[in-house]
């Protein structure tokens, strides 16, 4: 077996759609663009395509790096590449920036053709279902009738699940990782704290901060800090930071004194420097709204009865954001419908973030699953 490699230099592409997209919220996008990247080659019968869906702060930049920014490595580069679990010698892998995002696809920072200024807070609410519908249109353009697999972690896993319900015949396999069939009240509570941090920032200006030449940086920082706490585990924080003090002693100050304070402030500041506040608000609402069982009176097995795909469901032992029990719910609902499903519960100390990490057992499970997917070989 060859050593895992990077897919190397990649470049994003943009696809423009002029057919209006009706959104679940009742809103409507007259036209829009999706930015995407691809890795590997589409085979002759177009049967080897794999869609990778991103989570809250992810993007279309899944793997590889840019020629002019070699340090900007894709967020799931440890998974996608030659010799990696999602092997690009076998699969044609696609990453798409979701609608409402801030990495190039049409979103709050884009220009609204109706007004000539950026959408800002007027960008319509988008849902997981809307993202999937827009991704399906991109698949149409690329000539992909059925994905060999749709893969995602966290919010990306929700998209993978939704794919199997919205387009049952267009997904052969779904890998639903560190996800949940819906958010708990506690999950929504954390999202609401994050949103309130942004919404009550004086620089938010009802979402039109761009027109005021500012960004609600304080709100974004707080949103990211509270989010980050939920991505880690108590164990991981204890191991990484413990009660370590930056000055080696208590100095009785509100400056970042404990290492964990320093870390959260750093993460918050970094995030506020590149992420759009309106995108954050929209995306957390998309998370909150996701609940495919809602229109089935909360009956998840009934909701998943449409699915035809084979499934791999993966959870992580210390993930308290989307704990293993939420994956069990998905597994049992699939079992009820006699679907093919495998489930791995990975022993990991790293909490929700585990899905992004390069754990040997985790990646071994993914390799085993992706290796068994049959696609016609390249010519």
């Amino acid at each position, binding site marked *: 077996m060859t050593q895992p490699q990077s897919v190397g230099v990649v470049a994003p592409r943009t696809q423009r759609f002029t057919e209006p997209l009706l959104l679940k919220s009742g809103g409507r996008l007259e036209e829009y663009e999706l930015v995407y990247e691809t890795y590997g080659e589409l085979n002759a019968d177009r049967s080897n395509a794999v869609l990778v869906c991103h989570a809250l702060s992810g993007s279309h930049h899944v793997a590889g790096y840019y020629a002019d920014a070699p340090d900007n490595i894709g967020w799931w580069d440890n998974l996608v590449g030659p010799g990696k679990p999602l092997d690009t010698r076998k699969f044609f892998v696609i990453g798409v920036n979701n609608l409402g995002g801030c990495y190039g696809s049409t979103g709050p920072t884009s220009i609204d053709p109706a007004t000539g200024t950026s959408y800002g807070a007027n960008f319509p609410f988008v849902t997981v279902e809307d993202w999937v519908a827009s991704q399906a249109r991109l698949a149409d353009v690329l000539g992909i009738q059925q994905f060999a697999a749709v893969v995602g972690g966290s919010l990306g896993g929700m998209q993978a699940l939704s794919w199997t319900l919205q387009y049952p015949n267009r997904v052969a396999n779904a890998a639903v990782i560190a996800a949940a069939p819906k958010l708990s009240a506690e999950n929504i509570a954390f999202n609401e704290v994050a949103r309130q941090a942004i919404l009550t920032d004086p620089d938010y200006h009802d979402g039109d901060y761009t027109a005021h030449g500012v960004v609600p940086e304080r709100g974004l920082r707080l949103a990211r800090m509270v989010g980050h706490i939920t991505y880690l585990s108590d164990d991981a924080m204890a191991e990484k930071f413990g009660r370590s003090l930056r000055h080696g002693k208590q100095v009785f100050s509100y400056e970042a004194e404990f290492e964990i304070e320093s870390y959260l402030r750093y993460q918050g500041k970094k995030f506020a420097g590149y992420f759009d506040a309106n995108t954050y608000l929209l995306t957390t609402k998309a998370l909150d709204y996701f609940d495919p069982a809602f229109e089935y009176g909360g009956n998840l097995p009934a909701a998943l009865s449409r699915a035809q795909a084979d499934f791999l469901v993966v959870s992580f032992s210390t993930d308290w954001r989307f704990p293993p029990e939420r994956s069990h719910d998905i597994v049992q609902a699939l079992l009820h419908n006699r679907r093919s499903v495998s489930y791995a519960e990975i022993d990991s100390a790293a909490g929700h973030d585990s899905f992004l990490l390069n754990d040997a057992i985790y990646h071994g499970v993914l390799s*085993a699953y992706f290796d068994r997917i049959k696609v016609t070989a390249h010519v």
Partner: protein
Amino acid sequence: MSKLRYDFQAIAEWIGEGETVLDLGCGDGSLLRHLADTRGVLGYGVEADPDNVKASIRNGINVLQIDLERGLAGFEDGFFDHVVMSFSLQAIHNTIGILTEMLRVGHEAVVSFPNFAYWRHRQAILNGHMPVSENLPHQWYNTPNVRFFTIADFEHLCEMNGIVIRDAIGFDEGVRVREEPNFLASVGLFRLGREH
């Protein structure tokens, strides 16, 4: 694929075409692979060991990573035609609990286990040592087994708990034993049900 085990064929004889099978402690998925190939069953395996989970996935088996000590909560009543547990019962603490659960989620249960009263095991004890054999390959200090029982003990347990023995086969090193199974069989294979 690993070598076909002798109990697989006997188990397969009890399972009908296209039935639904849950295999507890499915290892690398060989039994379910065999049942899928020969009986076209809809099979699910349960495994706690990560390497076995990977091996089962590679084997094309549906495998669910669940710790059996936590029971089968979440599985629906009577969902499976057969619930199989091959050579794992002796490694589970809650013996009655798991048997009850097997017969809750399945119409029938199939269990196989090493018989501690096998004559060679008796001989080992008479010679002053815990038995080590093909079916009890571990030493007393590193065995994963936590329950040490015989075919006769198991029959008694079933009787005490209203579990009906529908079929029973004893094996001695892979060959069917016709009489005195509690003495001559190294392995017991039982097909269980509930009184109706």
